[in-house]
């Protein structure tokens, strides 16, 4: 455990936050985001281009010598907080964090292309896969054949990173998206729409042999940084609800003055601050390659997953009727939060993983 990890944003991180927030304010309108539930997905490509190419965020985690910015998990966490605040329907977490992290130990040119935003990748595992969970590998017998369900980021990807069985252990093959059958799934969270993927004798390029550790590291990094998305999401829910309760009147009073509601919001504030600190600690540990990463990630996921759901549920309830409508964006947050809770391992799975690490065995 590291008591000295810096948990406050640096000036560079503050600047990055402002830049990303400004862009999302301009180009990630909640009404447009809601459109993805009705199949209007133009915002996905447009916004991802803006973030990945214009702002260069796809290369945050890639070393400079490989065409990236050589930044760290801390900067990625800043971006994810903002993406969580807006439920932005972009594959930053799946491509720029998880797929990119898989390739950090590979010499494939693909890493540079991902960093530049020229290509977008997805790791082909069910989105519910936790860092220590089973990785369902595809068989390779004269071509890849098999299927993987509920993959996140595949619809936005032009290249798939496929875990493949081999005699020497797990391998990662890069397969062009056009060489696989990618079937969109009607997802609980359409702002991160899943896909079922089938390979029917596809051939890919081996980009990483003996890849299990790299895949688990990528999933763990993803899980640790997902906590920042969840903290950002929860922060929005709190702020939006407080703002609404300061103007909504019933019984001739501002309803935010009712103690039953004030106390719920005070408790939510307390938990949101805690979630923000836990997510920041996980990001700081990941950035430093700290020995405490497994504990930090399990703690952050266990806490932030449930808290984000609570924040979204409280937002809906405390908004009253308007919170239950399609028109109000609160439902985008509930759907994302509930989906995020299951993504990369449920809170219960993360606590089970935590138990032996802290010597609290069943």
């Amino acid at each position, binding site marked *: 455990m590291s*008591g000295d990890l810096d*948990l406050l944003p640096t000036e560079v991180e503050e600047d990055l936050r402002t830049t990303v927030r400004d862009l999302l304010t301009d180009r990630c309108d909640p009404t447009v985001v809601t459109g993805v539930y009705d199949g209007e997905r133009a915002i996905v490509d447009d916004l991802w281009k803006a973030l990945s190419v214009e702002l260069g965020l796809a290369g945050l985690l890639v070393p400079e010598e490989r065409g990236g910015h050589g930044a760290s998990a801390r900067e990625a966490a800043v971006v994810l907080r903002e993406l969580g605040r807006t439920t932005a329907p972009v594959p930053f977490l799946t491509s720029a964090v998880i797929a990119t992290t898989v390739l950090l130990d590979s010499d494939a040119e693909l890493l540079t292309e991902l960093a530049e935003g020229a290509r977008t990748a997805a790791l082909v595992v069910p989105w519910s896969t936790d860092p220590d969970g089973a990785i369902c590998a595809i068989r390779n017998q004269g071509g890849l054949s098999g299927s993987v369900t509920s993959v996140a980021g595949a619809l936005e990807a032009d290249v798939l990173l496929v875990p493949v069985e081999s005699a020497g252990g797990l391998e990662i093959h890069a397969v062009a998206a056009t060489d696989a059958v990618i079937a969109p799934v009607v997802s609980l969270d359409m702002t991160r729409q899943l896909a079922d993927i089938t390979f029917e004798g596809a051939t890919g390029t081996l980009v990483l042999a003996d890849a299990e550790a790299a895949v688990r590291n990528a999933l763990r990094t993803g899980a640790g940084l997902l906590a920042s998305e969840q903290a950002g999401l929860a922060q929005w829910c709190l702020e939006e609800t407080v703002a609404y309760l300061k103007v909504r009147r019933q019984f001739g009073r501002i309803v935010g003055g009712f103690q039953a509601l*004030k106390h719920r919001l*005070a408790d939510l*504030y307390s938990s949101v601050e805690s*979630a923000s600190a836990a997510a920041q*600690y996980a990001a700081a540990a990941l950035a430093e390659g700290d020995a405490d990463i497994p504990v930090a990630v399990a703690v952050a996921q266990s806490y932030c997953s449930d808290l984000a759901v609570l924040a979204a549920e409280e937002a809906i309830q405390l908004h009253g009727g308007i919170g239950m409508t399609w028109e109000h964006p609160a439902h985008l947050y509930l759907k994302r939060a509930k989906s995020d809770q299951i993504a990369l391992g449920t809170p219960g799975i993360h606590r089970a993983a*935590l138990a032996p690490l802290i010597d*609290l065995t069943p």
Partner: protein
Amino acid sequence: MTLEELHRKVTDFLTSYDPATTDRVDFLRARFDAGLAWVSYPEGYGGLGLPQALQPEVDRLFAEAGAPSNRPETNGIGLGMAAPTILSYGTTKQKDRFLRPLWTGEEIWCQLFSEPGAGSDLANVATRAVRDGDEWVVNGQKVWTSGAHNARFAILVARTDPDQPKHFGLTYFLCDMTDPGVDIRPLRQITAEAEFNEVFLTDVRIPDSQRLGAVGEGWKVANATLNNERVSIGRSAERESGMVGVVAQTWREHPEQHTPELHDRLLKLWVEAEVFRITGARLRQKLAQGQPGPEGSAMKLTFARTSQQLSGLELEILGEDGLRYSDWTMVRPDHVDFTGRDAGYRYLRAKGNSIEGGTSEILRNVVAERVLGLPGEHRVDKDIPWKEIPR
């Protein structure tokens, strides 16, 4: 001053005052005079005007050298509340008189704030102080005074003008607990011990030179004290410090009691306690950078809840042993340790965590109003003379 210079200053001090041979009180007085007591205090008052963040390093160096301790756990009110308030509002004479013996522990302090009719509504204090020449004559009843029976002085809030609205007629005093008009009676709690007292004040005379702040300014001064109370709770930065560490250890020592349901609850609470620790670490980093975070009140809410749930869980982990209690004999401890004694004590004592230092309900109002900016509660008693409030 650099860290290196500070190290050298401590080393030089330890050369001049060998902890092995120097008298305990002489050592502590000298440490105060060298500015190495509380380094964030100004020079001349036990400090060097350094960032608070350097204090743990100084304390570590002294502890490693085997230096005598000022036993801060026996003078929590003095160090955590009286001292910063005296520093902020005291005259030069008051600071010179009180701060050194307070820090060395030669003079223990207690707090005479709460009354039977002034708990959450502290500004409703009814203890009267009436001016008589250069003195004030004080009459009233205080309650929840921890350590009164060991205290040499008290910080006291009393009503000096009942014709003013309640927040404006109060004045803050430094009260001598050896005055013959001070009657201290133990207040036995649900744990069986009497950590607190009731204090009856009958014609207690306080010289005007022991008034802190202006007449009628008592509420403002008291709030400075209470803000320190909230900040001073939950300082520790180590993982598994406090209640969670005790309960985790109980779990490890009782494998025969493990069930999946208890394991689930323990892990959830362990995570909450760890997140609380991280939130505290972040708050301390903010404070070190001079950004006071509003999380202090929110953190106390979390602290109270997790302490209560953890200590309740511990009794269940203990199973049959959880049915036993160490001792119902009435004792008067000289300090309180929330994680001390046995599991039954910890469970009962933790009930106070959401009441003392601001109830969780009041703290939720504080967070909602001061942090989130939500409307305040209706206050029917705020603008009328105190003496006209129905009671």
